[in-house]
């Protein structure tokens, strides 16, 4: 693993540093992947059936549209079929599929320029201020358009992160995985995960604050 550019992150908490490393090459899942790499259609079908609900949920969480979710989910599995030969077992299959899925969603958002998505030019200072100070993310009674605007803004801000940081952030906050689980899934140590998450959070915060200050595009 490349640790270059990653600051040491001393742990002083009560929980000891987990040293677990999962070997993704020798699992049942790895055997399934190898069968697909050998073009075993039954194995591919098993992967589709095993992960289709998960993939569909991820896409639906981001896009909130059943038709788009169906189309992108098909695209995700087609991509899995064609690129599974490049899967190198450095992460879990789920992490790899998750990354493909999120990337497909972002490709779709960038290409289609979904009208509902709030872009910099449409985003006023007032909107930014409301975002900065509101707690509507947890407010079940918030107006639908406000919730949508907030969701779209966070999608846009997440687009400012690197692919890896975006996936980590989503796995942590949307999927609810712990740092320890993320470490197992990605084969990065927990310190590295924490540093990456911290930097990603800071970047998101700064992007939102800059938007709030200037009402201008987030660089």
């Amino acid at each position, binding site marked *: 693993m490349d640790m270059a550019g990653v600051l040491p*992150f*001393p*742990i*002083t*908490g*009560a*929980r000891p540093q987990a040293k677990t490393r999962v070997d993704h090459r020798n699992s049942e899942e790895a055997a399934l992947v190898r069968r697909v790499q050998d073009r075993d259609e039954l194995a591919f*079908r098993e992967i*589709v*059936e095993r992960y*289709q*609900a998960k993939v*569909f*949920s991820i*896409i*639906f*969480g*981001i896009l909130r549209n*059943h038709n788009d*979710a*169906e189309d992108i*989910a*098909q*695209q995700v*599995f*087609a991509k899995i*079929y*064609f690129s599974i030969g490049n899967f190198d077992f450095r992460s879990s299959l789920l992490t790899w599929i998750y990354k493909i899925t999120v990337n497909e969603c972002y490709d779709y958002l960038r290409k289609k320029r979904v009208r509902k998505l709030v872009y910099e030019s449409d985003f006023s200072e007032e909107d930014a201020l409301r*975002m*900065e100070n509101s*707690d509507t*993310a*947890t407010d079940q009674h918030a107006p639908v358009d406000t*919730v949508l605007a*907030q*969701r779209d*803004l*966070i*999608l846009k801000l*997440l687009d400012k992160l690197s692919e890896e940081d975006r996936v980590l*952030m*989503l796995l*942590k*906050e*949307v999927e609810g995985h*712990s*740092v320890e689980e993320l470490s197992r899934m990605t084969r990065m140590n927990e310190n590295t995960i*924490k540093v990456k*998450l*911290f930097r990603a*959070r800071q970047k*998101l*915060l700064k992007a*939102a604050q800059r938007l709030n200050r200037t009402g201008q595009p987030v660089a």
Partner: protein
Amino acid sequence: MHQSVRDGLEEYLADTGSLSEEFKAHLKACRECAEELRGLRRQALLVRALRPAEAAEPAPGFYARVVERIERRVRPSIWAALLEPSFGRRVAMASAALALAVSAYIVSTEPFRVTPPLANALAIQTLTRQDTPATVAQDRDVVLASLASFQEN
């Protein structure tokens, strides 16, 4: 953000309840860290808004549709095949060879006839014209007049 808070940040945001005493003590004393933590918590809640509100499942027959999409990519259309460089090159060469063969056939089977329109006209004129002393004299006059009026530029 101070290191002690940074160390416990993920546990704090995940509400695991396993915060160190150092973390709690620092948070009480440091207004700057407390403020930053509030911002990060709001942000985390916003990201969690991307969790699907309802269970989302594809419609039945999803695998068949995936296979169909894969097959569409594996078997490209005839137009895509024509655009493929190697196939296109072969088609171009075959077309050139065919054109050459057809040309050779036409040339070899065409009867030899040199009857251009001008040659025909001259031949007819030669055959039909009867030179008389008067026409010969007239021709000579025309030639002499042309020579006399000729001016070199």
